[in-house]
């Protein structure tokens, strides 16, 4: 009798676990159940999503890389310079709410799928969250905007910090997005940090290192810094086009360097990955030569002096300037 009771309790516990951990749809490939997202189950709050990809322990040994990355706008990828946050709101209002078949009549209707046009790059881990996280993200964005309107600095700052709690942090590049070809190279595993080396990693949370086949390749950045329209989405969007320009113009006709070589190594910026906001990038990106002279232009008897200004610009970067 006691034995039967014990089995019943175990069955109930398993059932309970199945109810509280939202599961992912089955994937065709082998090993996806070892990913952080599959092991954690879908996040139901922004805090849970932040915890799922919490990389705060990395700073214990990687202080320099941490400090560098904090200066990069990747560390506030949803908030940006505030303009990104505003653009997501615009996307909801001028995009989703005006699209007759989106299913969004008000910001409360926004689901994860609706936000992936932005989040594919600004918060790729949102794909590992329940729709409740999309709603929380949207309500935080509107709370922030409302606080700004009311000049409530404390509330605006609180919402801003919440928006900055989920970012493109160490784990997004060094785990979640460290493998693009998952059927060839396997799915990124929980507890593993992907980089240039394999072996043990002195960390309780991430006890193993593994080589990412793409960490030094342009495609690592190209996952977000785009080809053009994201045609895999039900409603395609287009933001970055620099990876497309890199592939079809730079690689085709100009050079062989990778994104990382220019934006991280040659610039000496390391994990402070920058574009136009840093002189290390802008000083090298464009040659600008101007020549100016004047003379007395003559059209028959009519003399009309003129100045001639000749400008030459050579884009020395690996992609079109600007992109978009």
């Amino acid at each position: 009798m006691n034995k039967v009771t014990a089995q019943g309790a175990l069955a109930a516990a398993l059932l309970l676990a199945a109810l509280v951990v939202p599961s992912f749809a089955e994937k065709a490939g082998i090993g996806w159940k070892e990913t952080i997202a599959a092991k954690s189950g879908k996040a139901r709050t922004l805090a849970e999503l932040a915890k799922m990809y919490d990389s705060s322990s990395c700073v214990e040994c990687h202080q320099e890389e941490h400090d560098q990355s904090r200066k990069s706008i990747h560390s506030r990828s949803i908030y940006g310079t505030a303009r990104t946050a505003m653009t997501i709101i615009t996307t909801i209002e001028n995009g989703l709410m005006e699209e007759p078949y989106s299913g969004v009549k008000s910001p409360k209707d926004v689901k994860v799928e609706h936000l992936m046009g932005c989040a594919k790059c600004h918060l790729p881990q949102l794909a590992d969250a329940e729709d409740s996280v999309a709603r929380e993200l949207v309500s935080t964005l509107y709370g922030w905007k409302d606080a700004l309107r009311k000049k409530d600095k404390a509330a605006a700052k609180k919402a801003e910090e919440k928006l900055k709690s989920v970012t493109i942090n160490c784990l997004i590049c060094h785990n979640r997005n460290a493998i693009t070809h998952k059927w060839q190279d396997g799915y990124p595993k929980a507890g593993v940090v992907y980089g240039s080396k394999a072996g043990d990693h002195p960390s309780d949370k991430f006890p193993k290192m593994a080589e990412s086949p793409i960490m030094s390749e342009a495609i690592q950045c190209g996952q977000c810094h785009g080809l053009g329209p994201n045609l895999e989405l039900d409603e395609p969007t287009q933001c970055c086009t620099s990876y497309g320009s890199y592939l079809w113009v730079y690689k085709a006709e100009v050079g062989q360097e990778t994104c990382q070589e220019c934006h991280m190594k040659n610039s000496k910026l390391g994990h402070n990955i920058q574009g136009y906001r840093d002189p290390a990038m802008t000083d090298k990106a464009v040659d600008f030569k101007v020549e100016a002279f004047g003379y007395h232009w003559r059209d028959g008897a009519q003399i009309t002096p003129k100045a001639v200004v000749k400008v030459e610009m050579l884009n020395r970067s690996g992609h079109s300037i600007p992109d978009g």
Partner: protein
Amino acid sequence: MFNQEKIYMPVPQQLARGDRMGRGPYEKSGLIEDTGLPPGKMVKERFDIMYPLDEVEENGKTVNKPSAYDLDVEVKLWYLPYGSANSDPFLWREFAQTVSISKGGK
């Protein structure tokens, strides 16, 4: 007396159809044209700026004379990440020179 702007950018096509330019990422899905600076390719511009003229009497005739013999020329390359000089503009390169023409001669 002379002010001319040229815009270099990929011109997004609204919803990948027709002749309307898109603005937000949610409505951009193609290009109408791309006037941006391509990697590795020289882009040249030329500006011909006529000096301002005044009509003056000279030896009983009305003739045109430059109202100035020196022009201050400025060329600025701006990066406008949000398409407006009012929002996070970045002055990338600039050039300044006074261009002079001779006062004498036939």
